[in-house]
């Protein structure tokens, strides 16, 4: 039989192990990749080894073609996310408070979900040019619809009892928004944002791939044209980093704003 302290130790060990598994798994994967490339002798323009990608990362950074492009994509993603989020909040508020408006707008929301963004990216480029504006619009659109739906779901899940409470206190619209509605939908909103934050990176790249003069999508196109596959991987890596930063920020926001839900 195990004593109390022993069982505790055991579970502690388990926890520590659990912490180390994900990074070890990544490291192992990279090793397998490296060995596979060495053995198989594939040329670097088909599959570069991780070590080669690392070298390319350093040289690209030195040549000054990496960070400016990273920054452009990051800027598009961030601005698109903010605009899409703000628009979803405002329109969500209106729709949640007006059943008629919801009936009018909702078919568009449903239909828009079925439109692949990659397909409208060229349209947006025709309308807004090849600068950064169409990418921001695509990002904003990628974020907008899922967030809008989440906001409407959040409103529906607000308890009627709580609404009654505010009615009995004769609370005004502003007080309702501040104390009831916004905090009430915040968990669902942040849940939606968690998914949208990474989606918006996809939106930005899709926009850049269909025509751009800067950004990581542009860099991927450029590198592909020169069979610089290692650089394509470097750009992919940077996209992952941007997505992770966005995701991490949302998680951090959740931790800060939803302290009450333990």
């Amino acid at each position, binding site marked *: 039989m195990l004593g109390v302290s022993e069982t505790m130790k055991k579970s502690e060990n388990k926890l520590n192990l659990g912490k180390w598994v994900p990074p070890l798994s990544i490291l192992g994967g990279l090793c397998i990749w490296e060995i596979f490339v060495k053995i198989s002798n594939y040329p670097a323009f088909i599959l570069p080894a991780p070590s080669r990608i690392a070298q390319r990362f350093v040289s690209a950074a030195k040549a000054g073609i990496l960070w400016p492009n990273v920054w452009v994509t990051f800027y598009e993603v961030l601005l698109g996310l903010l605009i899409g989020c703000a628009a979803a909040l405002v329109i969500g508020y209106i729709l949640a408070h007006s059943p008629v408006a919801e009936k009018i707008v909702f078919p568009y929301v449903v239909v828009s979900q079925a439109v692949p963004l990659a397909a409208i990216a060229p349209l947006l480029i025709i309308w807004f040019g090849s600068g950064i504006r169409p990418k921001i619009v695509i990002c904003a659109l990628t974020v907008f619809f899922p967030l809008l739906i989440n906001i409407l779901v959040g409103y529906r899940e607000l*308890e009627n*009892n709580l609404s*009654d409470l505010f*009615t*009995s*206190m004769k609370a005004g619209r502003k007080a309702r928004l501040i104390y009831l509605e916004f905090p009430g939908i915040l968990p669902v909103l942040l849940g939606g944002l968690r998914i949208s934050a990474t989606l918006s990176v996809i939106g930005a790249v899709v926009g850049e791939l269909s025509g751009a003069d800067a950004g990581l999508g542009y860099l991927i196109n450029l590198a592909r044209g020169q069979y610089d596959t290692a650089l394509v991987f470097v750009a992919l890596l940077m996209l992952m980093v941007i997505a992770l930063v966005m995701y991490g920020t949302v998680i951090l926001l959740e931790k800060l704003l939803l302290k*009450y839900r333990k």
Partner: protein
Amino acid sequence: MENDILLEAKHIQMTFFDTKDDGLHVLDDISLTLKKKEFVCLIGPSGSGKSTLVRILGGLLEPTGGELVYPDGKEPDPRAIVFQNSNLLPWLPTVDNVALPLLVHGVPKKEARREAENWLQLFGLGDFANEWPNNLSGGMAQRVAIARALIQKPQLLLMDEPLGALDAMTREQISLELMAFREQIDATVLMVTHSISEALLLSDRILIYSGRPARIIDEMKIPFPRPRQPELRDTIEFMSMAKVVRKKIFSQESGQ
């Protein structure tokens, strides 16, 4: 001068039309009068539309028939409602939940909090001001809900089985606290309850309510002088009165 009457409900009817074609008759002809500063308990079987009546008296629901008359010419304001479950906002710390009615009307945060803290002290919850509502026990949460109602200094306080979801011991304790508060507030109180001893301990008048058709079948004045003491419950007068009430409720039920 009939000015000691706060509210008169005349032949209130309530039918909900959202489910069946012929509608769901919840209230069929309810009349009652509430005098100023009176504590009235409404006692009767569950599922008989008492919550609906509370919502109508609280102005949350428009009755489909009958009317509410205010002899003063204006609605009681503020009207506070304590619901069956505490209905605390989980995202506000306890103190802000109590302060909510003040915050909602633009009272500065500092001032509202100070007042809320006073109320929490009175309910013995001073140490829990900064706790999240999720960390409170059921009894504490309901105390907070009552404090939130009282902070409004309501003219009319409606309580819909406020202690219904609590265990017997907590329930008894809070009803004693309410009895003590009773003397400090100016509100007219209408409380829905299933507990005869709670009703006898707290109220000036008991309305006995019957289900289906929902109506008020009897009314009793509770003669015990105020302020009352917990020991009242052990007196012969209290027990025999409880017996009378019980008889009235159950004779009604078996008679149906």
